[in-house]
């Protein structure tokens, strides 16, 4: 079982344009040392990165922050490990339901929750066959929207969702 969390942290730091500092992993625990300050645990590290970047991706008030917290936990627990296929199906299904009513995970704008989940889901989405992408249409729509930001996508491939048009006859509705 390999976790790619250190990679996610590197990507996030790059996206936020802040120095990552020194990341070490002791057994199961990640630690970040930056400006002589030590932060332990992935969640705390992500929040510290956001804080360093002075962006508002971390939530503007406590409700948002709490929700973001929950999403990050969700990502860490369900999306990051070398999951079984079945786990991934459950994950996508749940996410798909939740995203029915949402354009972004928290509030009505991009937050670090979207960013982290994008990196966490990259592998899963990349290997997902097209007809499955269609099954999880809300996840696909959300993912497609998130991945358009080049500074977020960095060197990762743009995942293609466009075949969706062909298979459900949407094309004919476009005027």
């Amino acid at each position, binding site marked *: 079982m390999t976790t790619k969390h250190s990679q996610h942290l590197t990507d996030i730091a790059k996206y936020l344009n802040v120095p990552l500092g020194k990341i070490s992993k002791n057994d*199961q625990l990640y630690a970040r040392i930056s400006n002589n300050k030590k932060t332990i645990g992935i969640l*705390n590290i992500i929040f510290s990165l956001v804080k360093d970047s002075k962006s508002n991706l971390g939530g503007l008030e406590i409700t948002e922050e709490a929700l973001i917290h929950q999403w990050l936990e969700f990502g860490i627990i369900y999306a990051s490990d070398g999951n079984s296929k079945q786990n991934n199906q459950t994950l996508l299904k749940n996410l798909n339901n939740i995203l029915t*009513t*949402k354009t972004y995970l928290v509030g009505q704008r991009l937050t670090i929750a979207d960013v982290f989940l994008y990196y966490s889901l990259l592998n899963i989405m990349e290997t997902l066959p097209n007809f499955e992408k269609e099954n999880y249409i809300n996840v696909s*729509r959300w993912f*497609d929207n998130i991945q*358009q930001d080049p500074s977020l996508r960095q060197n990762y491939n743009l995942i293609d*969702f466009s075949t969706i048009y062909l298979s459900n006859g*949407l094309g004919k509705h476009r005027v």
Partner: protein
Amino acid sequence: MAFGDLKTEKGVNELNKYLEDKSYINGYQISQADVTTFNQLAKAPAVNQHHALRWYNHIKSYSAEELKSIGASPLAAATPTAASAPAPADDDDDVDLFASDEEDAETARIREERLKAYSEKKSKKPELIAKSSVVLDVKPWDDETDMKAMEKNVRTIEMDGLLWGASKLVPVGYGINKLQIMCVVEDAKVSIDELTEKIQEFEDYVQSVDVAAFNKI
């Protein structure tokens, strides 16, 4: 982008279909096209037109200033008929209109409680629980001791707050190896003395246990 007459059910259905795999009408951010389409709607889409409704609520969240900053015109005076009630509209079932208020109060209360719990949790432990990473040297009796079985036995020890990590065999001479095993313990829950005693209870294999390294995490 045109969807027929958006004042009609059919038009909204087309919009709904169009937005199935899109967050915005044009491209990947809000634009004038969203505003124009929004303003053409007579009322909020129905609940079963969930793609359109999701988009509608998202667009509605933009303030006039935000729209101005992207060079779009403001939203039409918040479509009075449905602005604050994007929900039932023409949904079939006989909703008890008076119950909804109570429910809102209830959900609000629950949210308050959870938020409180969250801030309490946050103030209580800004960092993680104190933990230590420990490397133990487990020495066998002689070169005939089955090291694999020994390791297996050691790993059977389960304690709250104890997590076994990697291990390796280190030669100590005369063909004898010792087992070096790592573990992470929560300081408050696991005493190292107790742990070493427990390991020494596997008398058939273990001669002695030493703490080789001890680091606070």
